């Protein structure tokens, strides 16, 4: 998967780059609108992460051009503005998703997975981890064809951890993923632990799950 990162903050671009490369994507960074348009013209990308405030123009201009010429590329808009106008504007111009800065990299990878999956007509419908089959289309999990009944939240947590496998996922990241970017401060809570505990209990019935790690005081990790 080729990803174009359009971000004028070089340090931030590098962090995103490192993370996505680590996750197995092939990435390229550009810092300006012009470079982005050049790059899109000369290479094929599956997805683009587009910052809006670029030094030589508005990221929306890039988005407009992309939608005129190429419709197969997934675009996630990264914005620090978070304004309603921008979101509406972006929807009309055909962005596939939005992330408001600051965002969690793990959230970015989950969204990226989702938009690429949508772009390719939902051909990638299953995730497999240690014999557990996650059917993304209908929120079902089974082990050796034995269905496991999970709640929506448990399924979301499981999927999120699997998509970000081999990484420590903090409680905060999980909370934000499940409940959204809620405004309340110190939302880091033990509610997520309750759901994870239930999830592990259900999985544990079928096989040993020592690959489903608890990182003390911090969060969780699923190792492949």
């Amino acid at each position: 998967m080729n990803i174009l990162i359009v971000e004028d903050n070089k340090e931030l671009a590098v962090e995103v780059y490192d993370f996505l490369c680590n996750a197995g994507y092939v990435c390229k960074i550009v810092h300006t609108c012009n470079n982005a348009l050049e790059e899109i013209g000369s290479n094929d990308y599956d997805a683009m992460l587009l910052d809006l405030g670029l030094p030589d123009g508005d990221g929306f201009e890039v988005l407009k051009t992309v939608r005129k010429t190429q419709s197969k590329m997934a675009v996630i808009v990264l914005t620090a503005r978070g304004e309603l106008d921008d979101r509406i504007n972006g929807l009309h111009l055909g962005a596939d998703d939005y992330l408001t800065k600051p965002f969690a990299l793990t959230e970015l990878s989950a969204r990226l997975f989702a938009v690429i999956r949508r772009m390719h007509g939902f051909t990638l419908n299953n995730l497999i981890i240690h014999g557990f089959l996650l059917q993304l289309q209908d929120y079902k999990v089974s082990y050796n064809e034995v269905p496991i009944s999970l709640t929506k939240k448990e399924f979301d947590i499981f999927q999120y951890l699997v998509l970000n496998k081999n990484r420590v996922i903090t409680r905060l990241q999980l909370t934000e993923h499940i409940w959204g970017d809620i405004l309340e401060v110190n939302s880091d809570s033990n509610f997520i632990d309750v759901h994870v505990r239930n999830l592990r209990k259900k999985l544990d019935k079928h096989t040993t799950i020592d690959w489903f790690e608890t990182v003390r005081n911090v969060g969780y990790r699923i190792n492949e």
Partner: protein
Amino acid sequence: MKIKHQLAIFNALTRLLVILILWLMLPILVENVVYHHINNSLLEKKEKFIKHLNREEINDFIESADDSTEAFSEFSMLHNEFLVLSRAPLKPRHKFYTFSNDYRKIEGEENEYRILQYYFAYEGEGYKLEIGSSLSEVNDLTFVIRFFILIVFVVILLVTFLADTFYIEYLLKPFYKIIDTKIRRVNEPEAFDHTPIKAKSRDFRELDLVLNQMMDRIAELFKKEKQFISNVSHELLTPIALLKNKFENLLQNESLDDNAIDKIASSLKTLDMLKKIINNLLLISRIENNQYQANENINFHEILNDLQEDFQDRLEDREIDFKNQMTHNYNFIGNRTLIHILIYNLVINAIKYNRPKGDIVIFDGFENDRYFISITDSGLGMTEVHLEKIFNRFARINSDQDGQGLGLAIAESISFFHHIEIKVVSKINEGTTFTLAFPEAEK
């Protein structure tokens, strides 16, 4: 009372005053003019008489030379004039001639006359000449003039009052237009209509111009603030994003020991708190800067069901009974995101400040034709002193409570933005009720 009515009434009153004064002065004026006229004609007659005066004529007038009081008189047919010549002793200090009004009985008919008395000497003898002119006609005439003038005045008063009213109305039309189309919309500087108001009066054109300039300035300030908010959010949130992502990448480093992982995770938490404070402050600024549209249909049942689902974990954790007793289907137009945040903040407070195994009651209804939703908890409650401060930014009841105390400040901003009145009643150890009273529906 509107200015056009006040002006019309004031004009009518001043005119009435002028008319009243004229009315009172009229007899004096008329008399002055009439007397002046009569005096002149009496003097003329006297001149004529004296000019043609000779001894014979005097003898014709005065039959008996001894009789100084009886005088020969000459009357006109209708008794409107008379002439009397009589002997009078010569008095050197006597005034030459005088005018006076007096009643005279002539041939059994008493009338008021204007009388010229003239003393003169002829061949060494003193005489007094009296020429009179009747005033009864003059008085009749004065009455008729006053009557007609009264009618004319009343007509003038009515006509000018009507003309005034219409003209003032016409003159003030641009003024009311300025109020209706410009001043009332002062809170939406971007939607401000800059087309100049057509006005005959220069004052209103100037007012309109100044208003337009003022609105331009306000719009400029709004724009600048919007720009500033946008800049702040970009400039503050970008470094936070950078730090957050750096820490996240660092967290994946295999060589970290538990202690380091802990510290990174707690740094991430601090960053998250910082992000939320900034976002909350920006949210308040954006609301106050009118950056939100309020044009969505809001279904309160939907919002509360969503919230109940979101809060399920918290509610179960503290065994709080969430009782949604809403029965109305009120239709409200506003900003769904903001209303969601408003109710979210009130409900989360009701959970946070509740006692374990307590309850939360959501109730709705109508009071004085206004729809209200109340959210009641069975928690700690607050004292009067606390109640006064709860909507202040960064206000917290207990320092050991979670949160940074912006929730209710946001709730207040959102309420104000939507013209919703937010009321709070609280009793220590019994609980607190927040009531949202929605503005009366415009029909």
